[in-house]
């Protein structure tokens, strides 16, 4: 009968529509002014060599491979930070970093992706790592990283997923809580002795997106 008279079902009679499954929203895109410069520097090298100090991100591998036809060396120092936070090893974190990076020859790398690794390091460890990274870079090479500007208890790590030459997304995953060491501009300049700050942009997140060059 309803079909004959085309009685429409009153909204109140209608069974409530099933709620769509909850979907965690895709993290917002973050624009980058510094990443394009990093890419420009590295792309000038024939067959560039990049070192990624974070965990492997498939999207980044595809992105850098397609864009740069590079050799990408993944040295997940963030994993070492987490392992050390849970159970400190003999010699400390610096020794673990030195062992992990020991296979890389000095002046063999065109670009280094630090992401926000230094936020999780104490000053001494950061200093030692920065010095080592500076030796790994070729002349003209570039180091790209993020440095927090506010003290905070860090309870997560961040994966930076490059979506475009000038944009990326953050993906967070749990971390053993650690206190962020804030590095001022002069601290960075001193820490990365041998490198010069080519560009530094303060993001809305409060992090300083920075590009270092080795002259």
């Amino acid at each position, binding site marked *: 009968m309803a079909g004959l008279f085309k009685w429409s079902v009153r909204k109140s009679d209608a069974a409530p529509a099933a709620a769509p499954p909850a979907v965690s929203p895709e993290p917002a895109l973050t624009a980058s002014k510094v990443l394009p410069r990093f890419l420009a520097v590295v792309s000038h090298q024939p*067959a560039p060599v990049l070192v990624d100090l974070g965990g*492997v*991100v*498939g999207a980044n*591998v*595809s992105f*850098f*491979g397609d864009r*740069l*036809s*590079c*050799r*990408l*060396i*993944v040295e*997940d120092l963030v994993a070492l930070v987490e392992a050390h936070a849970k159970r400190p090893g003999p010699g400390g974190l610096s020794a673990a970093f030195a062992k992990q990076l020991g296979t890389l020859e000095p002046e063999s790398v065109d670009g280094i992706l630090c992401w926000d690794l230094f936020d999780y390091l104490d000053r001494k460890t950061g200093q030692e790592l920065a010095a080592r990274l500076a030796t790994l870079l070729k002349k003209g090479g570039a180091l790209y990283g993020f440095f927090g500007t506010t003290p905070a208890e860090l309870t997560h790590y961040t994966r930076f997923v490059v979506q475009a030459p000038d944009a990326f997304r953050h993906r967070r995953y749990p971390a053993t809580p650690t206190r962020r060491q804030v590095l001022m501009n002069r601290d960075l300049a001193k820490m990365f002795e041998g490198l010069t700050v080519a560009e530094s942009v303060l993001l809305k997140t409060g992090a300083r997106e920075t590009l270092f060059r080795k002259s």
Partner: protein
Amino acid sequence: MWKRDEAVRPPQPASSPSPGVGPESSTTRVDLSRSSERDIVNIGKSVVIKGELSGSEDLTIEGQVEGKIELRQNVLTIGPNARIKAQVFAKTVVVQGEVHGNVTASERVEIRDSGSVDGDLSAPRVAISDGAHFRGSIDMQRQGQVAKPDMPKAGEARSTAAASPTVSVAAASGSSSAPVR
């Protein structure tokens, strides 16, 4: 490639492994069961191979291989149960299991979310799924062709052949049993 004078039986179905091939055997006889009309060969979970594995058809490995795998014109799939300690050369490599060793592909390397690779990758295209484990370097520099594996010197070849038997995966036509070298 196929030595018919050797006592080689036809391949058994995957559920019943050939007699004489035990789970810990390092003999060169391998239970190769064909999964479809296409030239795809499967190496089962219980199979252990130590030596060089080469061939001219697609291959799926679910067992253990130690040594070298070479399928220059074909697709190599390393299944979720596979444990590989070898240098790998293929046209395309799909990793769903565990690999310790370098992987070289002329077209593509893909590491699925269940895959784990400790070693260097070399391919024009590399895809790594979320959740996959990887440690090493990824060489996506355009080189034209896959790097040819180092050819052993004459002296080394003889000693290698004696110490590490070679298993070949035969072409489809005219072959009904696994080759043995």
